């Protein structure tokens, strides 16, 4: 018999019940809750007269709707305010801890979980948000769920699930200077496609993955969903344990010892078999920039916008042409010839301290191009903001002409006031370049924080390795 994959181990250790047809009840250790996908779930509980099964497993935070400016004035958008207030009321009624908008621990749900040690190796982690895959960076089984499932987890602490197939993405070599986990994620998506991981749980492994910091692994796992995989994960190693140790909700003393002994087993066995194996050469990857309206529409900074006319598949050809029309780009335009109007550094993909340091290092002593109308940094949490300020990063950003904002999802999905105007082009460190994602008619190019900073300085995309 072959060994077990990390995914097998995580699945097996959370199995409460399984049916002959393969559907199963999976126990959920951690439930992250935010304001957008939870109100209807709490309402469902109320209507059915149900209680929350284990309120201490849940943690709530408003992030999608919160303003990133003038927070002392509260939320001026009445519809957004009602949604955020509803989260507060629901948490109070059902006994769930919430980090409110003005709590220093508030931030993007996928940033604060790991930051507080609420995300631990070996856990099942769910949230009504597709980027829950982020938490897989800790050797956890983490995936996004819909609102009906949010209600289901609140009521039963379980999910009805069915085991995915397993895929291993093995990254050889090492990422070059100026090439980040974001570039790796985009290059992988460019290779497998946005549906390449559909039906799979992906384990990222290999020397170039082991060399990533936990922040980098979070960026990589965060984007697993953009490859179609509900869950992405990285095995536990010393770096994982070092990151977790000392976090507020992490175990201590003898309990830590017990936990560590189990966590160290959370790796795929050497003889484990995967349903699908993909190999990527990390040494070959250059900084990536998306050119279209799907994350798979991506190319290296040294390349050009492709010509859809060259695409063999008819559906891809028409989608490619539609994307170029939407993006206002001509085929074969060099990527470095694309000018940007706005720059957004933030989101659950790239708003951690390491991301801010990388962007600040590029900006140091320079100023954004006059043609860039707005450049903004939105830290992932209040604590990251505080740390960045302690390191003086805010001063570098401000001196470079960037705005330094309060934490939240912000212009990744533009549910608050931060958004693109129709036709505006943005270098964004977020995760989706869909039509209208950052504002109706807005045009998004996904890049790493360092590449976003470099684009802000030049006024167009440039190769950050030349800085």
């Amino acid at each position, binding site marked *: 018999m072959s060994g077990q994959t990390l995914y097998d181990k995580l699945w097996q250790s959370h199995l409460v019940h399984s049916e002959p047809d393969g559907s199963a009840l999976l126990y959920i250790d951690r439930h992250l809750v935010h304001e957008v996908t939870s109100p209807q779930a709490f309402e469902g509980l109320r209507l059915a007269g149900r209680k929350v099964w284990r309120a201490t497993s849940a943690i709530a935070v408003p992030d999608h709707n919160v303003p990133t400016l003038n927070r002392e004035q509260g939320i001026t958008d009445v519809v957004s305010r009602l949604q955020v207030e*509803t989260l507060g009321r629901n948490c109070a009624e059902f006994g769930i801890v919430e980090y409110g908008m003005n709590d220093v621990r508030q931030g993007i749900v996928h940033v604060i979980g790991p930051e507080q040690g609420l995300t631990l190796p070996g856990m099942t982690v769910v949230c009504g948000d597709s980027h829950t895959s982020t938490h897989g960076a800790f050797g956890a089984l983490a995936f996004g769920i*819909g*609102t009906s499932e949010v209600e289901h987890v609140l009521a039963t602490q379980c999910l*009805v699930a069915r085991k995915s197939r397993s895929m291993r993405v093995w990254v050889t070599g090492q990422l070059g200077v100026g090439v980040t986990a974001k570039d790796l994620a985009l290059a992988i998506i460019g290779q497998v496609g946005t549906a390449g991981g559909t*039906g799979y749980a992906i384990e990222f492994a290999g020397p170039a993955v082991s060399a990533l910091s936990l922040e980098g692994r979070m960026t990589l796992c965060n984007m697993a969903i953009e490859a179609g995989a509900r869950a992405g994960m990285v095995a536990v190693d010393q770096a994982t344990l070092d990151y977790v140790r000392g976090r507020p909700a992490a175990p201590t003393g003898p309990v830590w010892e017990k936990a560590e002994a189990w966590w160290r087993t959370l790796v795929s066995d050497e003889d484990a078999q995967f349903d699908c194996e993909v190999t990527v050469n990390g040494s070959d990857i250059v900084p990536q920039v998306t050119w279209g309206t799907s994350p798979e529409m991506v190319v290296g900074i040294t390349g050009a916008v492709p010509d859809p006319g060259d695409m063999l598949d008819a559906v891809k050809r028409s989608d490619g042409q539609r994307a170029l029309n939407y993006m206002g780009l001509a085929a074969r335009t060099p990527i470095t010839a694309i000018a940007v109007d706005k720059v957004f550094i933030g989101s659950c993909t790239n708003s951690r301290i390491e991301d801010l340091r990388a962007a600040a290092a590029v900006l140091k002593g320079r100023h954004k191009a006059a043609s860039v109308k707005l450049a903004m940094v939105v830290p992932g949490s209040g604590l990251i903001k505080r740390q960045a300020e302690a390191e003086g990063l805010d001063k570098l950003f401000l001196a470079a002409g960037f705005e330094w904002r309060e934490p939240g999802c912000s212009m990744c999905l533009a549910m608050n006031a931060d958004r693109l105007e129709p036709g505006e082009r943005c270098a964004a460190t977020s995760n*989706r370049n869909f039509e209208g994602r950052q504002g109706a008619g807005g045009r998004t190019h996904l890049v790493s924080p360092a590449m976003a900073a470099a684009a802000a300085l030049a006024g167009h995309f440039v190769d950050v390795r030349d800085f």
Partner: protein
Amino acid sequence: MRALTELTGLVVPLDRANVDTDAIIPKQFLKSILRSGFGVNLFDAWRYLDQGEPGQDCSQRPLNPDFVLNQSRYQGAQVLLTRENFGCGSSREHAPWAIADYGLRVLIAPSFADIFYNNCFKNGLLPIVLPAGQIERLFQETSVHPGYQLRVDLMKQEIVTPAGEILTFDVDAHRKLCLLNGWDDIGLTLQHLGEIRAYEAQRKIDAPWLFS
């Protein structure tokens, strides 16, 4: 949940791959704390020529005549025919809420994104995966035959074309049972109350750090 057993419905073709949930229901409508009323904003940015905001009277908004859902021949459609990776992106269940609220009950594509696919079954929608060749043929037939309808029989797991051709499809047994009967998962899961409690009790011993 609304049960679905069998229906004969008009087919509307949406000829695009990778239709994401931001396109199905744009973010500004996610601020609602209700579960209903999303149908008028389904595919909002493609369907209307102006910019959609919550609370508008959509009957007064200018329609995009080029968008397929606005064409008179497809009014009242219950079956959406589309391309690969439908429903990708955000996990928002507002997407299936909008689709169901609009009046669609069956979605047919060569593939669906995982979270969206799962969310459909919680809302009385049946997503059906067919091979790309069959999808291509259905697109052709839909375009040349105005009023093109399909009969969908969930019990038998088959689609019957107007010419009488039968196309079979797969569906998970548990999801099929729930959809045929209109059952919600929570009640079914709570039948395993004892097992959940037993698992939890053991886990408190094995992994006490999860319960502190």
